């Protein structure tokens, strides 16, 4: 089948382009951002238990001060982040995995371990991972201080925290 020879039909030939440098073509891409949620651990005893998760982040985006970091966060920390973003940023913040009120019914009324069941923790881990990846990749969320405090501060100091914006360093 005869193919269109663009040289003979200059009116539809491609526009001239700049050649791409070897560095640009083969260097790691400038959009590298990976966040994993791992190693859930339940701390404490009896009524005073809580579960937290490790959040491991690797990135080369200049907006994040630290390129590789790992912090531990619990569900209520995620709720805090979501509230901050809903109030301060213009984005539609995705929803978190559910609060699971039914599972928080006292232990003697439940047949299983409620919110400390392995299955439930795994489900929640997946949901939190989806949430944080969606949020951290959003260009507008990346400008919010709450996101950076959440991902990169060892602990969230709720007393000292002041909302604000982050610009590229």
């Amino acid at each position, binding site marked *: 089948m*005869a193919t269109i*020879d663009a040289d003979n039909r200059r009116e539809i030939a491609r526009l001239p382009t700049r050649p791409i440098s070897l560095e640009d073509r083969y260097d790691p*891409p400038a959009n590298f951002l990976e966040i994993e949620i791992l190693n859930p651990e339940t701390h404490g005893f009896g009524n005073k238990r809580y579960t937290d998760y490790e959040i491991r982040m690797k990135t080369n985006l200049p907006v994040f001060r630290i390129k590789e970091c790992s912090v531990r966060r619990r569900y209520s920390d995620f709720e805090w982040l979501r509230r901050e973003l809903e109030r301060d940023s213009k984005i539609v913040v995705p929803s978190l995995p559910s609060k699971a009120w039914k599972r928080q019914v006292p232990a003697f009324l439940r047949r299983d371990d409620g919110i400390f069941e392995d299955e439930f923790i795994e489900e929640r881990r997946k949901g939190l991972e989806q949430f944080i990846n969606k949020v951290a990749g959003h260009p507008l969320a990346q400008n919010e201080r709450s996101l950076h405090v959440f991902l990169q501060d060892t602990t969230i100091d709720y007393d000292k925290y002041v909302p604000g914006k982050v610009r590229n360093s």
Partner: protein
Amino acid sequence: MDLLGLGSKVDIDFILDPLEQRKQVEVKLDDNNNKRSLQYIYYDGEDVGGSVQIKLKKNSKVEHQGIRLEFIGQIEMLNDRSTIHEFINLSKLLAFPGELTENTSIDFHFPSVEKPYESYIGINVKLRYFLRLTIIRRFTNTVAERDICVQQLSQYPEINNSIKMEVGIEDCLHIEFEYNKSKYHLKDVIVGKIYFLLVRIKIKHMEIAILKKESTGNGPNIYAETETIAKYEIMDGAPVRGESIPIRLFLGGYDLTPTMKDIQRKFSVRYFLNLVLVDEEERRYFKQQEIVLWRKQDKVKTKNSAKQYAHFEPPNPPIKPEDSAAGISGSGNSPVNGPSSSGNNSDSTSD
């Protein structure tokens, strides 16, 4: 159109092109349904002439107070208060009051009729030209209408600069887009490219769409409705800084009209190219750019027009009957050429 339901005693037909010299086009009668009809194409300044044939049914007689023929150009707004605005009304009295006793044919001729705008059937507005024959009767008139399609032809624009712009989100995504022209005719090709200057988001794919924006009304009451005429994926996958993505979009395959600006201060039809980048989380980043569309006169086919095909191979000489039978059965083994796999998938969708 005998409104009292007394049964129409006449059949009316318009003969516009007895010598079969005029082109016809299939016109969608309504933007919503798919009813179509063939209409003759007229241009600005052309005469409108022909004859009206009135056939009587069942050997009846029709008394009338006159037979009038009008050539009308009007804009119909299809909103709640359907308003009709006539901008052309030429009228001729074809017959004085009298009686029709047999089938009658009456010639008519409107010389050098101005048709300043192109016919347009849109979402909320229609611009149409038509002939209306009225047989004036005592209780109710008999009315028949025949639409014609008017097309506005333009010349190649003297100035037709390319569109080149750098846009983006600070520190996240910078692109430079370029389209080879700003004014395209309806069978033209959009040739362009997207150059990536900064890519800090994870792009999944990029597409370009043709949007039609029809705005009706004026002043504080402008109502605009946008329709996606075509969507075309131009890139699949994640680009890096320094990459250029080509664009080649043939307009001939789509249902487009010329750009219409402020017609009788009643409506406008404008076209936009919408470049959309979609990232891994389905977030959409887009840039709309207006383009002007115009209608070019169709090429007149002459003996020398075969030269434009010179770069294709000459057709095979005609095959004899016994060879053609073998050719058909033998083609089962030859590979089938599917659509070219350059990764461009064309959808015509109206969202």
